[in-house]
């Protein structure tokens, strides 16, 4: 049994390489990194535009066989789409609301495989990142918690009118 204990001590040693805080592959070219990031986002955005038939940069529908887009006033979209969750300030929230449109008819994406996400446009993300730079601390008591969404944000609450058997004890 001692042999086994020793073995496992050695596995750990084998996996360790001095202090965990270290730079592995030399300096990072920041400018190049940023260029690549912009390019990657741009590419994602173009793919999403093709996929959804919608130009996400100018917030305009594109000619597309798959989707027909229809504008909806900001006040009519569910709460979730109205305010931005990072407390971006009025401008950001407003913008998100104006941008919301809903697909009408058209192809319904196959349920599991093809639901791709729409990346933000680069400008919009820049704003986000300013605010996100501090990730929440573990013990921090954040007052910025997002409001819990209720099912009634999406559906109107109605009193139940069908007859229900009285609960026991009533």
């Amino acid at each position: 049994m001692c042999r086994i204990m020793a073995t496992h001590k050695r596995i750990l040693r084998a996996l360790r390489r001095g202090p965990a805080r270290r730079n592995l592959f030399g300096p990072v070219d920041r400018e190049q990194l940023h260029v690549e990031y912009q390019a990657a986002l741009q590419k994602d955005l173009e793919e999403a535009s093709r996929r959804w038939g919608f130009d996400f940069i100018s917030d305009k529908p594109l000619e597309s066989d798959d989707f027909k887009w229809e504008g909806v006033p900001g006040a009519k979209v569910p709460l979730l789409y109205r305010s931005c969750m990072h407390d971006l300030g009025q401008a950001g929230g407003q913008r998100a609301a104006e941008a919301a449109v809903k697909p009408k008819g058209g192809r319904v994406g196959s349920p599991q495989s093809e639901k791709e996400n729409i990346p933000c446009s680069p400008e919009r993300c820049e704003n986000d990142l300013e605010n996100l730079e501090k990730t929440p601390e573990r013990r921090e008591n954040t007052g910025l918690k997002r409001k819990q969404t209720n099912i009634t944000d999406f559906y109107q609450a109605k009193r139940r009118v069908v007859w229900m058997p009285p609960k026991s004890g009533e």
Partner: protein
Amino acid sequence: MELLCLEMDTIIRARPDPNLLCDDRVLQSLLTIEERFLPQYSYFKGVQKDIQPFMRRMVATWMLEVCEEQKCEEEVFPLAMNYLDRFLAVVPTKKCNLQLLGAVCMFLASKLKETRPLTAEKLCIYTDNSIRPQELLEWELVVLGKLKWNLAAVTPNDFIEHIVRRLPLPEDKLALIRKHVQTFIALCATDFTFAMYPPSMIATGSVGAAICGLQLDSADQSQWGDSLTDLLAKITNTEVDVLKECQEQIERVLMSSLREGRQQQQQQQTQRGPSGKGLDELDQSSTPTDVRDVNL
């Protein structure tokens, strides 16, 4: 009247749910969907020009150390490696950006699995500030896009309980066996050989290796009926030969890791001299292998 706050700095975990662990449908579903989350290509043969297998090992080892030092949940590291491999299978990446990618993958996996996830700042410090939180967050978005936001990948860790509870193992050894299995799974995640294997096979092979390693299989041969490997193979519908090969591979990786560790240890000893504190540091290891604290 006095008000007491009994909230503590402990991480609250859900108890093991028998509805999930004792229902065969859960294991069957895991086996059905696991292949969806495998990297599509052996990327060193095509997509990647600048990075090589040994660099993946370097970044993986670093990630494992960070996860250990931060006492992350066990599945964070294997999950992060799954993201890393899936990203590398589709995006040609420069070696100088590999550590950034590793940090992003830990960031995502930690957020998915932990109640108190790793922060961007902390991860940047672990890269010795070679990257900034801003960059980490930017690339998080890129990685998410490439993974199509499919983050809830199946990992070998998801299978441990399902396998272990179907084996006739002594109750008092279960905790120890789990630890060993977790260690083997982590070891497999550092080695590219296993990157394309289904998680269920890695889990089954690791359980086999753990039981053999602890010599629980030889203690009482009669209780196993069929051999251990046959039983294991049945649980996860793996072919016996394939499983045997996998288990042997795990044992080989283990041996070579141990050999490497021994060499490094000797090097450090000669570099630092007998009074160096290198060995003490190495001994203060945390998860996943504080097995030596367990009374054998």
